[in-house]
């Protein structure tokens, strides 16, 4: 693995995707507001998309398959964001807060 051919090494992309997944899971555990958790979830989606594209580029016989899948991932992420944000706004209207510490009505 030399520096000049770094962009043609599949490991570089796969390790970056693993790093994105780890960062996303860290954020999902650590964030204390709903919007912060949503952003961490988006980073996990990005990790999946990068993984699909790396495998598609380096070992798939048909290079359109991975691109179509990543396109579907982008569409699903957009739908997920729309639903989640409307839920967050409804929660904020009822509780005046989007912190996860305050949303414990089922626990009490």
């Amino acid at each position, binding site marked *: 693995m030399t520096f000049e051919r770094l962009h043609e090494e599949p490991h570089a992309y796969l390790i970056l995707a693993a790093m994105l997944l780890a960062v996303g899971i860290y954020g999902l555990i650590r964030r204390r507001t709903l919007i912060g958790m949503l952003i961490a979830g988006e980073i996990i989606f990005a990790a999946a998309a990068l993984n699909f594209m790396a495998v598609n580029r380096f070992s798939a016989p048909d290079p359109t398959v991975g691109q179509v899948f990543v396109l579907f991932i982008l569409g699903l992420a957009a739908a997920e964001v729309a639903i989640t944000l409307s839920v967050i706004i409804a929660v904020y*209207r009822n509780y005046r807060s989007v912190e996860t510490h305050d949303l414990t009505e089922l626990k009490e």
Partner: protein
Amino acid sequence: MNPFPGSSFIVPIAFLVFAGSTAVGALIAVKSARVIRSVAGLALCSIGLAGLFYFLQSPFLALMEILIYIGAVCVTIIFAIMLAEPDEPVQGRKTPGAFLWTACAFLVSAVIFVGMSRLSEQKSWTPPATRLTDGSVKAIGISLLTTYSLAFELISLVLLIAILGALVIARSGRSKS
């Protein structure tokens, strides 16, 4: 004829810039205390990811990444930030369990990162013997309308239902007040 000195480093340096902006953007998105900064980090991460898609021979997806993530997702999250007040709570409520919780989260993510990196290094990725298509936009369009036409229709239905559901959920509280 001698090439321009250092010209062979332009492409790897561009790759490193995109990979670095992806990683730094993701870290900003997760670590920043103010949510507007973490949305900016998500946008930076998306720009880097679009550049990486370009390196992976898919300029179409690079364009789509910028269009959908920065143009739609980040803008929608910013709208929600304007409607709610989602900043992380200040340090006054810090409990002794918070440090333990952070260490636990860091441990889980470090284990996942090391495990998946080792897993991807163990296998050597062999390129396929023959490529069936060239992966151009024309080939994507053909496969979207032939092989994946059902999934294509279904995802348009999912988007439609998501829009309707978002409207219904976000509207329900308004009529009461």
